[in-house]
């Protein structure tokens, strides 16, 4: 399973996006606002999820802003961090 696929599944399961399946999520669509429609309430959950599921703590604000742009961006960020980048 790719990181993108794993992330989609985690988003649906951990954020209880009951109306969606992983296949419904466009990996290039914005996570917040238009797109997946997550809000600031979800931001806290998402940051915690990334930490718990991938062991990655996002400390830098600019990195975080870029990483949470879309599922694809977040997957790339996670892969980069896991490979020591």
């Amino acid at each position, binding site marked *: 399973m790719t990181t993108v696929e794993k992330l989609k599944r985690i988003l649906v399961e951990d*954020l*209880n996006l009951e109306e969606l399946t992983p296949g419904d999520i466009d990996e290039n669509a914005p996570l*917040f*606002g238009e797109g997946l429609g*997550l*809000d*600031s*309430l*979800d*931001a*806290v*959950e998402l*940051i*915690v999820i990334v930490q718990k599921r991938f062991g990655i*703590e*996002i*400390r830098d*604000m600019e990195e*975080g*802003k870029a990483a*949470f742009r879309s599922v694809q961006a977040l997957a790339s960020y996670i892969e980069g961090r896991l490979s020591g980048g």
Partner: protein
Amino acid sequence: MDGGDARKGGKAWSARSIGSRWQHRFFYTLIRIAGRRAARVMVVFVSLYYVLFRPSVRARSRPYLSRRFPGRNALLRLWDGYRITVEIGKVLVDRAALGILGPGQLTVRHSRREDLLERIREGRGLILATAHAGCWQFAMESLRMLETPVSLLLHREEGDVDLHIFEHRDDDAAFRIIDPAGPLGGAMEMLQVLKRGEVLCIMGDRSMGGDRSTVGVEFLGGRVRIPITPYQLASATGAPVVVIFPYNSGPGNYSLLVEKVIRVPEDLGRAPEAYRPYAEAFIRALERFTEERPYQFFNFFDMWNQEPLQ
């Protein structure tokens, strides 16, 4: 949090002062020339003008006062409006005096300082849930005694002429501001503050809008929506939530009332309803505060009339 850039909600309140720029400057100058006490005396007269000749000012405090003092006649309603206007005026003077003239102007008493230190020693950060009561900015300044960095979730309205304490002088603020209108609603910064074991202060009585970041609770006989942010953060991090209310306890004296500690179970998730019991606990504490100090809860918008978002 409470909206942020992630969701544009309908905030019903304004953080801007009712005073004009020249009125603020007048008071700042008066404090410099004649001192804090003279400015507090002037507040008594200026408040009278506002209450008698500016119906819009009376109207802003009416939703709260009519619920706190139901069944009052017109004269007593006028008196209530005057009292609360004088109280907020005095607080604003004290706040400006602290910034302009420096510490030593006012004293603050902490009822349970050791309790706060004990919660910090738990090492999971500390969330202070407070309200627009007393001189909350002064309370933030006084939290220097915790010897732990303090961050405050605060949205600064564009064009607000009312200066923060630290803006009157050149030294650093005693607290760092996290803007809920910033990226991800400030979520990342708030989590980092708690992760570092620091103190995060959030106004528990006011939301920037967005139904999903609030829950409806009963307050003074009506339904209000208050933010769940403090409790959601507590659930995500394990940090305790301590409810505090600063209030003016006498001329030149403020007290920091540590009302209660709220423990939120971990991993409650994203459903706002899961946080209702903790929001209820906060609002009951605020209700007790308004019973004991009715003129020190500075709510100047109709918090009972916030339309749910569709």
